[in-house]
């Protein structure tokens, strides 16, 4: 895929997202002109781009969509729920088409084509149903207006072509004289008027006399066809911006021209003069058109009353003035936004992060050597260096941070579609949309979130009748919330639905042999059973959820991101699913410990304190920590490392999911910036080790997964002491572990 196409694909996806968001907004406020204009613009941009990269299947389809949007924009068709649904489907289809383009396939596959045909048919039906449009696929809108104009008294002076041309900077360098084109144009017919546009001209000091800064607005009366006019500019076709409006063009077309004009600091009046909209005859005709439009009920909403028609030395259409004003504010907005953003390819960022990772490792190695050398100057220099590396690491990781808002906003559509399908009334409320987290995490959290939201919609929110019976509002509410909490990000999906039925879950778990009837489980344990594989409480399998694959997949995906998920629920009042995720997947702060010669890294955020203990022998693996019985794990035993433990051992007190435990090691080696290197699929089943990292010495050290390690030991002990609870122990073992992904 060449660069142009990939830029187009990316931009189209953004425009599609905007279009979808706009359509959803329109559903709430059907009269919002700004929104419908935004939707139209998005579609128009997609179409325009597809023309440039010569992707005709997108162009054709989008053209039809644009026609319908245009009709909506001009109030020729009233926006109904059916149309919104159709347009949303069109959005999806355009998305698929863009995917097809991105995949490099020359044509969409047959099923997609069939979908496209069906949608095309429906689009055409709606457009055709509207009197006055008669299924015309041309974009020359408001045909009826034109008719009215002509029916008036025939003095309308729109029988000349309007040509806007902006020459590129290099035209004169290429040996072309812009004037010669105008002269040649004169051969085709009569040039009624020209306006020279010199807005692009920089200050005299900055001006390059060899560059061409000019543009022209030309009115030409001719019998020549559009292609003949275009041919005049053939020699500079690649290096100029040419727009041609045919005779009989309407106000709408001129508005579009204003919107497309490249100049940004245009003074309003000049802009209108240039558009040729200010010829007296035209203004008269335009006024007549408006009078006529007022008589046409469909167009009533747009036709501004005469009093509002702006008089600025001459009379102009309000629509045109508005468009010009809009255009000016838009330019300001756009400029401000462009200044803030730089588009960077994600691969480049990844490469930077990788390099920073290597830098961190190399820095650690330099530090190590400096310490060994015992030269205080060198030690100081390297410590400054490593502080800088640390800040580079932080800002590099910051680059990858994106707001979760876009992910959240996708669910507006899901909620709308699903609630229609289920016949429920559900609203989505979003908070914390500006919370930032790692791009990789954002990409991977979409699916689990989708499962949770669908689950809330399908199982959580009750049908309207039930809700009313329970004294709740008819309209259910699903909320998405995100916030930072000391180095991790918390995402919550909550609903005000029926909540989880503990008895039902219990019965189901017994039926599925996840627990034994005699098991005594806590409240939290019971409701978290829904994350077990093969668990589903709804008897009826809907096409949304209920296949029993949902929740355990959710948990697996989140575990793979080193995160956790749990659920809280109050019966009759709703449930809240809470996902906790690390901010980044690439680099963590670690605490380096050693046993014999091997080094291990404990994630620093799980370390509470370190204590030293003499003669830690005895049968029991717990100690008295300020009155608390702290169980501990001997790494030497569990990892089967040969050799005798030294007389003084160190215990690292760690905390994971509210449980504390000690890890007994030989010696402590201090903090260490840890670049996580996944161990690969071969070690996918390895529990207790979350990944690996490379030390300054070049050796590989293993990163301990504290939660999993504690679970491992707990399970082993439970298995030995309570053989009858075997199944449950297995099933619940991974509930709270934090796993480091085995592959990035």
């Amino acid at each position: 895929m060449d660069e142009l196409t990939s830029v187009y694909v990316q931009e189209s996806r953004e425009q599609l997202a905007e279009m979808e968001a706009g359509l959803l907004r329109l559903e709430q406020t059907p009269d919002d002109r700004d929104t419908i204009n935004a939707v139209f613009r998005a579609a128009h941009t997609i179409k325009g781009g597809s023309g440039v990269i010569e992707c005709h299947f997108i162009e054709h389809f989008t053209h039809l969509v644009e026609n319908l949007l245009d009709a909506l924009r001009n109030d020729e068709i009233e926006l109904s729920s059916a149309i919104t649904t159709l347009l949303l489907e069109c959005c999806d289809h355009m998305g698929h088409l863009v995917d097809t383009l991105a995949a490099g396939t020359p044509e969409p596959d047959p099923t997609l084509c069939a979908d496209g045909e069906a949608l095309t048919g429906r689009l055409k039906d709606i457009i055709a149903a509207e009197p006055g449009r008669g299924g015309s696929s041309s974009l020359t809108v408001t045909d009826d207006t034109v008719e009215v104009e002509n029916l008036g008294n025939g003095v309308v002076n729109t029988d000349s072509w309007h040509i806007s041309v902006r020459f590129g900077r290099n035209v004169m360098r290429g040996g072309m004289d812009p004037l010669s084109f105008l002269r040649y144009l004169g051969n085709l017919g009569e040039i009624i008027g020209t306006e020279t546009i010199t807005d692009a001209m920089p200050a005299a000091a900055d001006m390059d006399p060899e560059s061409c800064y000019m543009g022209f607005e030309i009115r030409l009366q001719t019998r020549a066809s559009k292609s003949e006019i275009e041919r005049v500019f053939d020699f500079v076709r690649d290096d100029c911006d040419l727009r041609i409006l045919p005779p009989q063009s309407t106000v709408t077309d001129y508005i579009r021209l204003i919107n497309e004009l490249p100049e940004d600091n245009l003074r309003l009046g000049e802009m209108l003069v240039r558009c040729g909209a200010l010829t007296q005859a035209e203004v008269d005709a335009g006024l007549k058109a408006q009078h006529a439009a007022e008589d046409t009920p469909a167009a009533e909403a747009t036709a501004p009353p005469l009093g509002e028609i702006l008089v600025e030395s001459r009379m102009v259409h309000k629509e045109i003035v508005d468009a010009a004003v809009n255009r000016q504010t838009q330019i300001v907005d756009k400029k401000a936004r462009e200044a803030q953003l730089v588009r960077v390819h994600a691969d480049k960022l990844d490469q930077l992060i990788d390099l920073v990772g290597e830098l961190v490792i190399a820095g650690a190695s330099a530090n190590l050597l400096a310490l060994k050398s015992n030269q205080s100057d060198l030690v100081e220099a390297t410590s400054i260096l490593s502080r800088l590396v640390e800040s580079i690491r932080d800002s590099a990781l910051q680059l990858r941070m994106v707001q979760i808002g876009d992910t959240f906003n996708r669910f507006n559509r899901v909620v709308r579609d699903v609630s229609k399908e289920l016949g429920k009334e559900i609203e989505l409320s979003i908070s914390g949309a500006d919370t930032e987290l790692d791009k990789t995490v954002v990409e991977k959290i979409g699916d689990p979130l989708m499962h949770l939201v669908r689950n809330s919609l399908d199982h959580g929110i009750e049908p309207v009748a039930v809700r009313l019976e329970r004294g709740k509002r008819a309209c259910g509410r699903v909320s998405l919330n995100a916030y930072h909490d000391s180095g991790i990000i918390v995402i919550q999906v909550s609903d005000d639905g029926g909540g989880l039925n503990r008895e039902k879950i219990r019965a189901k778990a017994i039926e599925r042999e996840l627990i034994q009837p005699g098991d005594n489980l806590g409240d939290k344990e019971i409701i978290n059973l829904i994350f077990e594989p093969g668990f589903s409480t709804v008897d009826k399998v809907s096409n949304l959820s209920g296949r029993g694959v949902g929740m355990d997949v959710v948990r697996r995906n989140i575990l793979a991101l080193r995160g956790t998920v749990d659920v809280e629920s109050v019966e009759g009042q709703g449930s809240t699913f809470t996902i906790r995720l690390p901010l980044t997947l690439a680099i963590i702060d670690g605490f380096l410990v050693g046993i014999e010669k091997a080094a291990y890294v404990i994630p620093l955020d799980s370390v509470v304190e370190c204590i030293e203990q003499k003669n830690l022998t005895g049968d029991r693996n717990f100690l008295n920590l300020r009155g608390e019985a702290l169980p501990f794990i001997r790494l030497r035993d569990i990892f089967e490392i040969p050799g005798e433990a030294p007389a003084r051992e160190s215990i690292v007190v760690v905390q994971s999911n509210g449980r504390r435990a000690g890890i007994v090691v030989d010696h402590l080696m201090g903090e260490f910036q840890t670049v996580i290197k996944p161990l690969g699929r071969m070690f996918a089943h390895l529990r207790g080790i979350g990944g690996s990292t490379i030390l300054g010495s070049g050796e590989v050290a293993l990163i301990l997964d504290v939660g999993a390690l504690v679970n491992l030991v707990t399970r082993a002990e439970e298995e030995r002491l309570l053989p009858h609870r075997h199944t449950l122990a297995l099933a619940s073992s991974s509930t709270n572990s934090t796993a480091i992904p085995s592959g990035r």
Partner: protein
Amino acid sequence: MGQISTSSAAAPTGGALAVHDAPSQQYLTFSLGGEMFAVGILNVKEIIEYGHLTEIPMMPTFIRGVINLRGSVVPVIDLSARFGGKSTEVSRRTCIVIVEVADDDTRHDIGIIVDAVSEVLDIPASEIEPPPSFGARIRADFIFGMGKIAGKFVIILNIGKVLSVDEIAMLTSTEGLSADSAAGTPLG
């Protein structure tokens, strides 16, 4: 040690591309427990000296550990143990051969421990016999064929099978469980 074997392997590797029209392929031969084995040269990425190995706990014995190969972490397999024999003793000539195996659409680098690397040989297809149905004391699907070199047989390995990531991952999971219960014993 490491340098010697690296240089002896590097020269013929470069020539591998030239010999393309002949129906013979090049193989890297090495010794392991007194026997000669061969792997297709196209699978071999490099040969490095044995050392700096980090052991991974709770893994079957044939997974010796991981090494840092210029910034990426590569697992190292003890072939002898993988074939069901005893672990390889590390000697002066012990090397790690880094091979690349394709699995679905991803490629993995895996190191194998060998006693000594000998040479790169051309073995024409006509000189490769099918493996014996039994008697080689190695799983039959691990053997690609028996190459005849100067009247002697070398076992040409089907390295994709020997180092099948899926199979090894499966083996580690069962091993991991039994290691858990083993680890549970000293606790309490």
